[in-house]
Structures are given as C-alpha cells and as structure tokens.
C-alpha cells in the first residue's frame, strides 16, 4: 500500500512529508524532485517508477501531491484517494495551494494521520472528519461517549450520516451541472462531442431520511413504459453511457430496477456523475472564416447561440489563436470586447451576456512578420468558454425526488437548477 505522501511546492520544495511505512526512506522525496519536477523534459505520465519505487502524482494549482509506494499498489485507489484528499483539503482550508499548505501544516499532519493508516486509506469524507478534527481545537465537553459514537458511526451501515440531525426547515437543493466537450470540423460537422455531468446535492434534512431520485433515463423509462402506458410526454429519455454514484446510493437497487435511492449525507455532496454522447444539444455554433494572403490574415468568426431565446449565457469567451509571427492585430466587433493578447498568442473575445438565438460576430486583421523559416501556420482550433444556466445540454431531466422519513414525516422543500458549462469546446478553422 501507500508508503508515503509528499506535498511539494511548484519549485520542488518539500512542504509536507509523511512516511507511513518503513520500506521507503524520507529521502525518496529528493528522488522524485530530481527525476520528475526538475527533469529536463516534461514528464507526462502521472505514474513513474524510479528505482523500484512507484510515484503517483497529481498537480493541483501550484502544488505537487505525490504518493510513493514500494509495493504493487492499485493505481486507481491511489488516484481516487488523492482526489478525495484534495476535496477534504478544500473543504477545510478553501484552497489547495502552497500558501494554504504552509499556513495549516499542523492540521494537515493531523489530517494525514486520520486519512491513512499504515498506508491504507481510512476516512476521506470531510463531513465525518470535520466532526472530530477541528480548526479551533477540541471541545473539552466531548466525553468518552463521543468517541464511542465515532466508532459506531464509522463502522455502521450508514457511515456517512450522523444520527439526530435536526433542521427547522427541511430543504434539498439539486444542481445538475454539465460540461460540453466538442471538436467541430471546419465544415461544421462535430468530430467528437460528449457531455460529462454531475448532480450535486445540498441536503438540509432532519433525521434519517430515505430519498428516491428519478431521471429521464431511457432504460428506466422504457421499463416503466409498459405499466404506465407511455403517458408521459417529457420526451423519449436520454441514454446515459456510464455513471458513477456517491457511496450512499444503494447500488443493489440500481442494478435491480435502475432506481436511485439513498440516505443522503448531511450537507453538500455529489450524488452522481454521468456521461452522454447521444443527442447533445450544442449551445453554440462557431463559424470561422480565415483568409491567408501573404503577410496578412483576415479572420471572421460568427458565434450563434442555439438555445431558447428565453435563456441566456454568461461569461462567454472566445479564444481565436493567431500565428506565432503575428506583428500587429486590428480587431473590430460590435458585441462585447475583443483584444489581442500577445502573451497567449490569441485574440480573446469576451461577452458578459449572450441571449439565446442571438448572433455575434468579430473580425480581425492580423499582420505577420516575415520569418526566416517558411513554416505553414498549423491553425489551432478556436476554443470557447461559457456558462448557460437552466439549459441541460444532454437533455437530462430530474423527474422526481421523493423524501421519506418514517419517524418525523415532514414535508421537504426541493429546488432544482441546471447549468451547462464549456469543457473543451473547440472548432477547427
């Protein structure tokens, strides 16, 4: 299992070093620094084996998070753990960067003692951790019974939810957040497109509620279709290619009849993640027009919103790459603001608000400097960034959410929000 965990700053200074097993020495941190962080060429693989020690690393903001292992450990476990650890970190300190690490190193060591034991991952749920590891110091009032409660909760069937939670107003917020990934060819044909979405839930419910969650999942609808005489008009349903669930979801039930039922943890959590590739409603269409003539390039880009006129997109940003030997750029546009950013070799066109069915256009004239090597410009794709509230690109729909609490029997207020963001949204020009 995991032999040690290290956190480096971007320059390669060791910020945190915690060794769990004695099959490695503390100085393996130098090995990683020399071979990966300071290596002459860029190391791309997240897993590297140096001198029979495996190093798994991820970079987050400006920190390297590295696990060293001598044994043949499951790489997926390690990466799942690392990402989970970052979540814990963020929920504790707000951000995971070298500043935060330096300021909170005592607490971090305390956390590291808790999340891993002898290299085996233990509790990585921030809600559970927060109950016992606090930033203010331990409350004296907690008695030995508290310790017993910890054990029973963490080893019980519902380890993620504490007993006896009480709210005056029982509410549940559901956010469906989707990111669209697209690669469009020059003639407007999508070469690849998929949506990866996640359902985030904020839960403020008393007691031990049992929830049942319904989507317009195609398989489920078809199964129900017979009994319900296909009365629903909501559409044919969407085909979900693959999905993963939070640990609270009862997988056995999902396997049996594809219903999602769970006892939610308290607070915010991600209920499920999914991916779809069929029938994606693309929010924007980008029509580029590039003319190269000698030392001049004329670029015209038209962006069209394809969603309903009642909706609108925010923070729209179009990034039009320019050749490396660009000398001067003249940009004109009516909507938003467009600027040539030499440090990024691109024209950045920003619009705060973009209404549905609206069409905007930018035109630019790029002057080039003659270079000694006549290399053709390889025309990198135009990329886009945006957010469209209340528009699910995959067509996913929350059909129902039932909350049942047998003892308390309260009414729940439920809120549903949709949001589509751009993943890598690129159009070739």
């Amino acid at each position, binding site marked *: 299992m995991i032999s040690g965990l290290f956190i480096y700053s*971007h*320059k390669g200074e060791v910020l945190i070093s915690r060794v769990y097993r004695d099959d490695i020495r503390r100085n393996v941190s130098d090995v990683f620094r020399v071979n990966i962080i300071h290596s002459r060429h860029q190391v791309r693989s997240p897993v590297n084996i140096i001198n029979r020690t495996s190093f798994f690393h991820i970079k987050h903001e*400006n920190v390297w998070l590295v696990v060293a292992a001598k044994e043949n450990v499951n790489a997926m476990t390690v990466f799942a753990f690392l990402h989970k650890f970052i979540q814990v970190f963020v929920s504790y300190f707000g951000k995971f960067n070298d500043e935060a690490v330096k300021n909170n190193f005592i607490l971090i060591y305390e956390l590291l003692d808790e999340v891993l034991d002898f290299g085996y991952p233990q509790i990585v749920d921030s809600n559970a951790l927060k109950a016992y590891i606090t930033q203010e110091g331990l409350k004296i009032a907690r008695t030995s019974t508290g310790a017993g409660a910890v054990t029973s909760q963490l080893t019980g069937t519902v380890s993620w939810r504490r007993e006896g939670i009480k709210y005056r107003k029982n509410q549940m917020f559901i956010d469906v957040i989707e990111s669209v990934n697209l690669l469009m060819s020059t003639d407007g044909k999508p070469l690849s497109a998929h949506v990866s979405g996640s359902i985030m839930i904020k839960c403020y419910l008393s007691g031990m509620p049992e929830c049942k969650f319904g989507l317009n999942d195609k398989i489920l609808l078809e199964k129900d279709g017979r009994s319900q005489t296909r009365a629903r008009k909501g559409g044919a349903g969407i085909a979900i290619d693959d999905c993963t669930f939070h640990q609270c979801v009862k997988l056995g039930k999902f396997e049996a009849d594809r219903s999602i039922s769970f006892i939610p943890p308290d607070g915010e959590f991600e209920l499920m993640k999914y991916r779809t590739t069929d029938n994606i409603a693309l929010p924007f269409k980008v029509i580029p027009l590039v003319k190269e003539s000698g030392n001049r390039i004329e670029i015209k880009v038209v962006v069209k919103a394809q969603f309903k006129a009642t909706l609108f997109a925010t923070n729209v940003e179009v990034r039009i790459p320019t050749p*490396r*030997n*660009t*000398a*001067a750029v003249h940009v004109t546009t009516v909507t938003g603001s467009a600027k040539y950013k*030499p*440090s*990024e*070799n691109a024209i950045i066109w920003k619009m705060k608000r973009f209404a549905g069915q609206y069409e905007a256009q930018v035109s630019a004239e790029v*002057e080039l*400097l*003659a*270079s*000694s*090597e006549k*290399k053709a410009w390889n025309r990198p794709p135009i990329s886009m960034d945006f957010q469209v509230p209340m528009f699910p690109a995959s067509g996913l729909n929350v059909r129902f959410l039932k909350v049942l609490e047998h003892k308390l029997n309260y009414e729940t207020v439920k809120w549903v929000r949709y949001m589509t963001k751009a993943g890598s949204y690129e159009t070739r020009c």
Partner: protein
Amino acid sequence: MPDDMRGLHNFIAEIRATKSKEAEEKRINKELANIRSKFKGDKPLDGYQKKKYVCKLLFMFLLGEDIDFGHMEAISLVASNKYSEKQIGYLFLSVMINETSDFNRLIIQQIKNDLLDRNETHVCLALTCIANVGGREMAESLAGDVQKLLVSPDSRSFVKKKAALTLLRLYRKFPEILPVGEYTPRIIALLDDPDLSVVTSVLALLYALVQADTQGYGSCVDRAIARLRRLQTREESLEGYVYYDIAAPWLQVKLLRFLQVFPAPAPDSRAREAVVEVLRSIVGKAANEPVRDKRNKQQLPQYFNARNAVLYEAVRVLIHLESETDLLVESSNLLGRFLSSKETNLRYFALELMSSLATLSFTHEAIKRHQETVVNALTQEKDISVRRRALDLLYNLCGKSNVRVIVRELLQYLQVADYEIREEMVLKIAVLAELHADDYSWYVDVILQLIRVAGDYVSEEVWHRVVQIVTNQPDVQDYATKVVFDALCSPYCHETMVKVGGYLLGEFGHLIANNPRATPQIQLQLLLSKFSMCSPSTRALLLSTLVKFANLFPEIKTDIETIFRSNNLSRNTDPEIQQRVIEYLSLSQHPNPNVMPTVLEEMPKFKERESSLLAKIREKSEGVSVDAEAAKVARQTVIVDRDRQEREDREEREARRSNPAVSQQPQANLLGDLDAAPASTGPSAVNTTSQPPQANPELAHLSRAFLFQNDGKLYEDAILQIGVKTSVKNNLARVALYFGNKSGYPITNFTSDVFAINTTETLSLQAKPVEGQLAPKAQTQQLINVECLKEFEEQPTLGVAYVVNGQLQRAVIKFPIFVNKFLASFDMDQPTFVARWKQLSAPGLESQKVFKAAQPIDVAAVRSKLQSMGFTVLAGVDPNPDNFVCAGVVHTGSSQVGVLLRLEPNRDAQMYRATFRTSRDTVSRILCDLVASSF
C-alpha cells in the same frame, strides 16, 4: 544615449524572476509580440533599438525558444559603422545562422566589404564570423580574400593571425575549395614572421595542409628548424613569449610536431645536422638539470611541465629520425631518471616514451637496464593509467633473454592486478610466452597458470592457441596432458581449464592412460564430475571428448554409451547438446567398426599462422599508440595474417570433427567408399541418408511409360509399391498415388512430397499430406493436383521417405507428368491442316528430328502410341499413307498451343523423321524431344 541597454537588463531580470515555466513562457510571448510589432512598425528603428531587440532575441534563443526572425535587423546592424552594433550583429548571425541558411548569400557581400575595410577591428569581426558560420558558398566567395589578408604585407599581425585560423577552419571543412597553390610560398614565408603569434597560427594552418600532402612544402623544414634553433638560442626577441623561463614552449612543441610529419631528412644533410643539434640542446639541457628541486623556488611545476612537453616532442622527433644512437641512449637514460620521480605525470610520460623507444633496436638494450624499475612501477604504482603504460613497456621490452623473468613478474602481479587490465595482461602474457618460449612445456605451464590465476579473463583465443600449439608440437603433448590432468584433479578449477582439459584428454588421453592414477575410467569420472558445473558450450565440448574416449578406450565404450542414452542428455533442452549426444551415440553404434576410428582420427596439425592473440592485442591498443605498435609488429616479423581466418579454420575443423550433422558430405563419401558392396545390392531403395537425391535411372525409365498411359505402376521394391492414376482436364491434372506396404513390418514416419525443382513457374503442384503410418499389407492414397501454367520440359520429382524396421528408407522417383498429358485432341480436314501448316512456317516454330527407331516399325503400334500420347491422328491428309499426320492442342494456364505433327517412318533404314509445328517454339522442341526419345 545610454549604451548599457537597460531594456535588455530589465527583461532578463524579469525572466529570471518568473515563478513558473508558464509565466516565463507568457513573458517571452509578450516580448516576442512586442519585438515583432516594433520590427513591423512604420517607424524606422534606430541602431540602439535594433541592437537591444536583437540582443533580446539572442537571449531568448539561448533560453531555448525558436527564433525565426530578426535576421534582417541583424544584417542591417552589421552594416552599421559603430563597433558595438556591428559586433552584436555579427554575434547574432554567428549564433543563428548555420552554413546551409539562405541568409549566407545576404551577408557575404557585407562581410566582403568588412574584409576590405581599413578598420582592422571590423576585418577581425568579419573573419570571426566566417570562421563561425563557414558555409560552402562563403568559402567559395571569401577564401581568396582571406588568403590575401593573410599574405598581404599591409595586414597587421593580429589580422594575419585571425586570417590564418579562419583559413584553417575553411580548409578543414572544404579542402578542395582553397586555392592553396599559388600562395603556398608566401604562407611558408610567414614562418619567418617576426611576430610569434602569427607563426603559431600559421603553423597550425600549415600542419593541416602538410598532413594532407607534404609535396611542395619541403622548404618548410629548414625554416622550421631554423626557427627552433633561434628559439633555443634566444636569438630573437621573445617579448611576452617566455613562459617560466622557457621560450615559447607551445610554438616549440608545434614546430617539433610539424617536423614529424615530414620524412626524416637524409643522413649527413645539413638539415639533419641542424635538427640533431637542436634536439641535442633540448635533451642536453633537460639532462643537465636536476629532475626537480623543491628547495629551488625559481623552478615551479609550470616550468617542468613546459620543459617536459618540449622534451616529449623532441624525443618523438628522435624516434622519428631513428639513427642518433648517442642521443637516443642519452634520452633513455634521462627517462629512466624520470621513472623514479614523484610526479605521476612525469612517470607516465617516461613510460610512454620508453615503450616507443624500446621498439627501436638502438635503445632496446638501454631501456632494458630499467627493467626492474618498470616492474616496480607496475606493481607499486597507484595510478592505473601509469600501470598500464608500464605493462606496455614491459611487453615491448620482453625478449628471449628476459622473458622468463618478465612473465614470472607479470604472473605474480596478475593475482593482485586491477580487473580492468587483467584481460589485457592475460593476453600479453600469453603472447610473450608464445613468442619467446624456447621450451613448450614452459609455455604450457604459463598458460595453465594463467587460467588458474585469472580464468575469467582468459579469452577464447588464448586457450584455442594452447590447443593449437600442443597439437602441433608432439614433444609436449605428453607433458601437457599430464599437467592438465593434474590441474583438473583439483576440486576447484576454472571452466576454461575444463575446456582445455576436455580437449587435450580427448586427443591425447591415451598418452597418460598407462598411469594407474589416470586410467581411462578415472579420466572419464573426472570429466563427468566437472560436467554438471559447466556452461552448455563446454558441455558440448566435453561430449566430443566422451565420444573420443569411446574411440580411444574400448573398455569404457559401453559406459559412455549408457551416459549418452541417459534422459538427461538425449532429451536435453539444449538442442546442441541433444543433437551431439544422439549423433555420437549413433556413431558409436554404427555397425561398421571402421567408421568411428576414421571419423575420430587424431586431429591434423594446424597451419602455422600469426598468433590470433597478436591481432587481438593490436585491436586492443589501436588508437593508443598505433605507430609504436605497428613498428613492434614489424620487428617481430610474424607472418601477417588476419586472425579471423585462423579462428574460422579452427572452428571448421572442430565442427567437422565433432559434429557429423554439419559435415554430412565428407562422411557420407567415406561411408560410401567403405560400404560399396552392400549398398549396390539394394536395387531400388537407398540404404542410408547418404545417397544424394537423384533418381535411379531404371526408375526413370519406368516412369517414362507414363508418356503413353495414365494409370499404372510407378515404382516397386521389396517394401513399397506405388501406383498412379491420372485424370486430366484442360490444364489441370489430378494424380492419385497409391502406396502399398508389401513387407511384413509396419511403415512409420511415412512422408511423400513432390518437388518441382526448375519448374515452379511452369507447374503448380499441390500434394495433400499423406498418413504417417502404413500397416503391413495395407495401402494408402495421396492426391496431387497439378496445374500446368506453361509448357515444361523437366519432370518434377517425387520424394518418399519412411522408416521400416528401424531403418530409414528413401526413394526419389520422377513424377509421371509430361507436357503431352495436357494435350487435347483436335480434328481437322486436309485443307485446314495444310493452311495451318503453312501458317506456322516461321523459323523456330518448326522443330524437326531424325532418329532411329527403338523397335521395329509397325504402323498400327505407332498409331496407337501416338493416340495414347494424346495426338489425334488425321487420316487422308498426307499423300503418303505411311506417314502419320497428327494434331492437338496443349492446354496451359496461360494459353492454348496448337500442335501439328508429321511423322515419317522409313522402314528400310528403320528411321523416323518427326516434324512439329506449333504456335510456340518451346512446345515444338519439347514435344519433338519426347517423341524422338520414345519411338
């Protein structure tokens, strides 16, 4: 205007301050865009700005960015008159432009202008740029100017210096472009230049020129010698060139080296006298000084380093001259003194030179006097490179008189020697022992000791050589075998020893077999006890020894056969071992008692060649001191031959001796000679594997019958009978072969296949595999599909092989398929026949033969024969009723060939005349031959 370029400083500071790679990249991108817009901008830039931006670009280039612009700005900077701008321009161009760049053309003119400039600094910048970029175009258009600068009387000396070096650079790159010829005398004249730095640079140029060809540079020698003499006697001004009390040591070294390129001046010439005088003064001066006196503060190590450098080259020149005995002896004595010096470098230097000197006959004796010191150097020196030199020197020193001492010392040292030089030492000891041995038993002792002391480092060549020598020297065989046997008796012996022992015992084991301590049984047990510890190749060798034992000592033959039969060997996973065991076993069990002794006869003597070891040593020391080594080899006057041949020769003999499978041919002949009588009694099937695959003539005749028939018996002997059924359709034939087992024993491993040797293009054969077993009195069938692609002449061959009663039988039979099998009948009346006959009158299409009848001519028989061959005999076509006129069509994959035949019998003479006319010449010829041979 500030000249320190604050913008550049700020930029560099900012880049250095960036926190991450990405930030640095962003900053660089921004700066690049800025420079691009500035270069592109409408406002013309002044020199300072250009210089600043070009510097920034240069800095970014050095950081690893791709810079593909700015060249034009740099060129315009070069055109500027300010030194700093010109310098930056040239700097940028030297860094960014390579010799293939298109910008070369643009800057050549500019460089030309600068070369002709009155300002020498500009000329120097241009020269440096040429030397740094130096493309072909540049060389072509500028070499002349550079040369002019070099020899022009107006040039200042620092221009001349740079010009000489630039020219050297161009000459190294494009020797053919330089118009050296006309300027040569003037370049040589520069050797007398008063400025020593010019002389040094020009000498470098001349050295390169002379190395290619000394022709036309003869006058240099005198000048160089004169110059040397003047330096030695300090006749000229040496201001600034005296280095720790030595006059221009670098120049002296260069001059001495320069002299070594030329052939040594003739004895008694003035040049020789002069050079000897100079050398005498150098050696003499060094000899009269103390080696190094620490108390004397004046004499610093630098002084000695410089002096010794000069001395080194001086001795090299002496060796080059090869005659000045007194000087050589003096210098060897001097070097001998150096051997005891405390300076490692000095000792190295002395040993290196001494090993060159040792190869000269004049000094060989003088050097020998230091033998003891050298041995000490080898054994007590701390520095491995010095020890190596000492080893070289000892090797060169060694002669008949001192070989025993030196080899003893070396052997002793070998036990503690460094691992890196062990292999070299082993080789050298082996060579010395062999070259200078007066007694071969001593040689054998030395080699065996070598193997004992440093077995891992004894290469294959060494023990091969021992074996060769022992084989060639009958007087040591007895001794060597005894010693090897004793060595093997010790519980720990090296694998190489086992190899030598295995070979020698196998060859000469009988010489010691009378000794009760070394009876055959004991020898066998000894080898077997080593067997399991050895590598496969050694095991294979030991197996050969065992089979030799089986031959030499009949009393243990059965033991050895049992060993061979053991599963461990006969089913060994190593194919080499397995094959050897099985072959040796069958060899020893061969019914003919004469076979084994003949095969395992004593090895013949090896041809005398150059020892392979010498060649190996040469390989090893190649590049280290090639000339010395070459001189040495010449002195030893050993026949020069590549060792590779030797090794191959040895391997081949070994293989022939030990591995019958490889050497099938000679052995088979042997068997054939011996067993001539029994082999001939078996009429059909051939007895063993030895018969070359050729069809029995009788059988060929049998298969010939199939010219006329499709079905019948193809082959028969006491065991096997083969029947044939053929059916033909157009160009496809299906031949069914029926194999019958006539004997009372089952036939196993039965295989049968058809080979078309020269007929792959003309015939396509597909044989279905046949069952491997054939019970007594049973029959099996094989179907063969034949497709005629083109007309063919040669019949394919049918190869049958099987094992019956433990004996391998093999038969090769002509496969009964002829071109006439694909002949289809074709009927026609007289006019058409005549018309066709006339059509096919072109030369080549007709083939005619007159031949004697084999049987009495009978019209009916001939007609039926022709019909059975597939021809349609046409009646009433020929006016003479005795003549036969036939027609037919040959179907081949590519075409259909019409065939017309006229066969005219002559009863009186019992002769036939056959005339074929077909639409293809080869078909005519083949059919004509077939008909002529079968009537």
